[in-house]
């Protein structure tokens, strides 16, 4: 599919980038073939985003050069670059109250001048961008009121209005649920297929990359490990080298693209020890924020001594349910019990000795080192004058060693990588030494190896010590493999609950997530595997470069 002689408007030659004398990208040369989708993959901290930013002229490399249309990109004026190349940053935030159309119009900035009113061309570009992303109906909505998937589409519309032949996207799907992920990836494929735009993106998820790209660049420690078609790059030995995790790779039974499943390092060993008094009972629960009722009359049992995974589309009430169980939110009606005792009664401290919550995206105060953070988990066991008994010290040590944090104990939490930071917060919840652990999307920012490491740890805590684990997971395949009990939520209600093999079916996936997928059995573990199907109109076929845009850019 890819030929070496293919033309390439954007390329890097021997680029090196360093942050504070720490090299992040080393002597890297890469050509982006025109009219294709190129994806940069790699573990956390491998320099993916840094590479993308230097390709987009946002970062100035310490050595080497980035070349756009045969010219050094840093010698071109910013506006000139912005007419040829659009960048979607990670976690972009819009100003408060701004509408979708307003946001999209800002994409025209590089084509406008100070006193000139928007031209017909500007208006056309905005209309076209709205239409392409399916946002025409939502044009007058404030961006902050949109769902995650809609918001991401609004941002993509903005850089589409920029009308650049090159699009650079930094993790465009990270916060989205599977339906929105597929929606965004399909949009990207359509832009490539129908308009011939050249797309470079950084992705987190290997399988998403396999589905979306013509070319994959595997990056590790700032160097290219391998580049080529998905089938060439995504094979077990390379994945093992890239992420440090053994993977099984299957071809999709219908569509043929490779599908990777990371293997757990921890064998499934039998039944966990019995734990009777840690089951969570939810009865006629209604809860929400202010006037908005998120949970509508939920009744559910989360079994003691088991691993329960909660899945569901964005904004289905997963986090609200978990927060209510963790006593962070008072129910409006109904009740939650833990081992038969009502959760929202009695002392907070006593409850915190029975149940720990790892919440989403917490931040540590400046200057806190890892050990300080882990030691904070001892708070419910401490008294004013008894803060560091032998038991406290032992629990902190155990948590540090379980989470592999011994070498990081004196590191400032703010200087850790995403994966390390998540382990530190998990260490804090462990030091709390509770029979029940609730984890709210513990794997969101982590690469494959870190995800497996964290879930293996949760499984070990369950299988060896009988702790009850309840977690919200984003990735359906991980949920299917690690959970004994699966809860599927939609629109504030429980859509299904039971063992993963029983619950997960193509019909359920269609009804809850609105996606078409094939469900097969993992030949190694027997757990169900969900392989999203190709949407027919978005088949990745390289299209000829877009002539009109070429003209517009020159």
């Amino acid at each position, binding site marked *: 599919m890819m030929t070496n002689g293919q033309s390439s408007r954007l390329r890097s030659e021997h680029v090196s980038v360093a942050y504070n004398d720490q090299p992040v990208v080393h002597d890297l040369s890469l050509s982006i073939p025109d009219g294709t989708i190129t994806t940069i993959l790699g573990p956390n901290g491998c320099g993916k985003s840094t590479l993308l930013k230097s390709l987009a002229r946002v970062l100035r490399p310490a050595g080497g050069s980035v070349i756009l249309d045969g010219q050094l990109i840093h010698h071109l004026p910013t506006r000139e670059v912005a007419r040829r190349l659009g960048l979607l940053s990670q976690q972009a935030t819009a100003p408060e109250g701004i509408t979708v159309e307003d946001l999209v119009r800002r994409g025209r900035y590089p084509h406008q001048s100070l006193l000139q009113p928007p031209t017909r061309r500007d208006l056309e570009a905005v209309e076209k961008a709205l239409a392409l992303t399916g946002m025409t109906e939502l044009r007058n909505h404030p961006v902050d009121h949109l769902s995650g998937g809609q918001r991401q589409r609004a941002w993509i519309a903005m850089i589409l209005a920029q009308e650049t032949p090159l699009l650079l996207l930094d993790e465009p799907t990270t916060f989205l649920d599977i339906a929105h992920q597929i929606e965004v990836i399909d949009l990207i494929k359509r832009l490539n297929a129908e308009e011939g735009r050249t797309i470079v993106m950084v992705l987190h998820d290997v399988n998403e990359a396999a589905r979306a790209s013509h070319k994959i660049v595997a990056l590790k420690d700032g160097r290219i490990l391998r580049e080529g078609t998905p089938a060439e790059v995504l094979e077990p030995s390379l994945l093992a080298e890239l992420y440090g995790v053994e993977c099984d790779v299957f071809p999709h039974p219908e569509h043929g693209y490779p599908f990777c499943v990371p293997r757990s390092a921890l064998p499934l060993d039998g039944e966990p020890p019995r734990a009777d008094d840690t089951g969570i009972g939810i009865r006629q629960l209604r809860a929400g924020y202010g006037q908005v009722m998120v949970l509508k009359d939920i009744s559910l049992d989360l079994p003691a001594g088991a691993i329960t995974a909660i899945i569901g589309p964005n904004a289905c009430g997963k986090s609200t349910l978990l927060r209510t169980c963790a006593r962070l939110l008072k129910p409006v009606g109904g009740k939650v019990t833990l081992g038969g005792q009502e959760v929202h009664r009695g002392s907070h401290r006593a409850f915190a000795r029975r149940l720990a919550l790892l*919440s989403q995206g*917490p931040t540590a*105060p400046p200057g806190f080192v890892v050990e300080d953070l882990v030691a*904070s988990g001892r708070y419910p066991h401490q008294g004013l004058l008894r*803060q560091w008994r*032998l038991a406290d010290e032992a629990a902190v040590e155990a948590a540090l060693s379980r989470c592999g944090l011994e070498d990081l*104990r*004196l590191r400032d939490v703010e200087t850790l990588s995403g994966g390390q930071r998540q382990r530190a917060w998990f260490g804090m919840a462990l030091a709390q030494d509770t029979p029940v652990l609730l984890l709210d999307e513990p794997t969101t920012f982590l690469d494959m190896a870190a995800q497996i490491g964290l879930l293996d740890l949760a499984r070990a805590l369950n299988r060896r010590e009988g702790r009850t684990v309840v977690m919200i997971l984003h990735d359906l395949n991980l949920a299917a493999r690690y959970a004994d009990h699966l809860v599927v939520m939609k629109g504030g209600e429980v859509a299904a609950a039971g063992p993963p093999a029983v619950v997960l079916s193509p019909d359920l996936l269609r009804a809850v997530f609105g996606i078409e997928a094939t469900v097969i059995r993992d030949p190694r573990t027997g757990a169900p595997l969900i392989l999203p199907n190709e949407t027919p109109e978005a088949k990745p076929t390289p299209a000829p470069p877009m002539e009109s845009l070429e003209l517009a850019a020159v």
Partner: protein
Amino acid sequence: MAVFDYAASPRRPGHITVRSRFVALRVNYRVLLFALIASVLLLLLATYAMTLGSYSIPFSGVVKAVVGQGDPERLTVVRTLRLPRVICAILIGAALAMSGSIFQGLVRNPLVSPDVIGISEGAGLFAVFWIVTGFDLALLPAAAFAGAALTAMAIYVLTWKGGISPNRLILVGIGIGAMLRAGTNYLSVRYPVEQVRPAVVWQMGSIYGSDWGDVKLLTGLLLVIAPIAVALTWQLRALQLGDGVARSLGLPLERARLGLIVSACALAAVAVALAGPIGFVALMVPHIARMLAGPLSGSVMIFTGVLGALFLLGADMIAQHALPVSLPVGVVTGAVGAPYFLFLLYRANVRV
């Protein structure tokens, strides 16, 4: 048999573990050592401060006079005039710095201090009213304290909406502060200039003319509040992790926050009541303490207090002696302290 079992913490440099039947604490002895060194410096500086003035006394003479030896004239100058002022500077500096430290930790925002969120303005309005209407000046501290305490209550009540949101607390405080300042300005133009003038001087913040009555009042109050403040840093550390995390650690959020707000307001109110609003100490000293000693803990809180004392005493010495005219100390903390603070921020490259 040893009552205390103590040992150096092997894996955490700079810490020592102390355990007995009733106590089990791990203490950052390095920071306590810093505090000790700062205390020695404070003692030397205080003694030196008492040698200065139009009636100059040698260093040894001051030491003797403090313990009650020497000629009566010296005794009067040192024990009646200079010692109370020095002690007041020390205690007020400590109270302001600790108050700022609690507020900054509480709202997780390093740009907050009691003078930013209107506590000082409350004290100011009451005090100015008291001065311009010609009430008994002996009760001025009581009036200022009442103003500070009422303002703190008003801020708390207006911020409450099923809980206290730190950001709303700052905004409400700034709003109330602006209102109170308008009131103070109104009083300043409403009354004749000769009555307003002492009020204006009071508002600059000064410890001129402190006497043993002030010292007794300050000591008594601080002996109660300061240990509570140090003890509450245990809860403050959990609170700093964010509301959600603190709650899942079993911290009774609103009760802990109320305790911290009350103690921080009390510290600020005590200081403002006796000295008027002295700017910048409460904002700046906690930063310097954190730069030197690391994130907030009980030991760091103690260190912050000593550092605040050292800072205000130094500022008062400059105010009193460095220029031909003696100035209110508040002028010096702003004029000298603020640029030095900017310099430190620039040098240390800390993230705020």
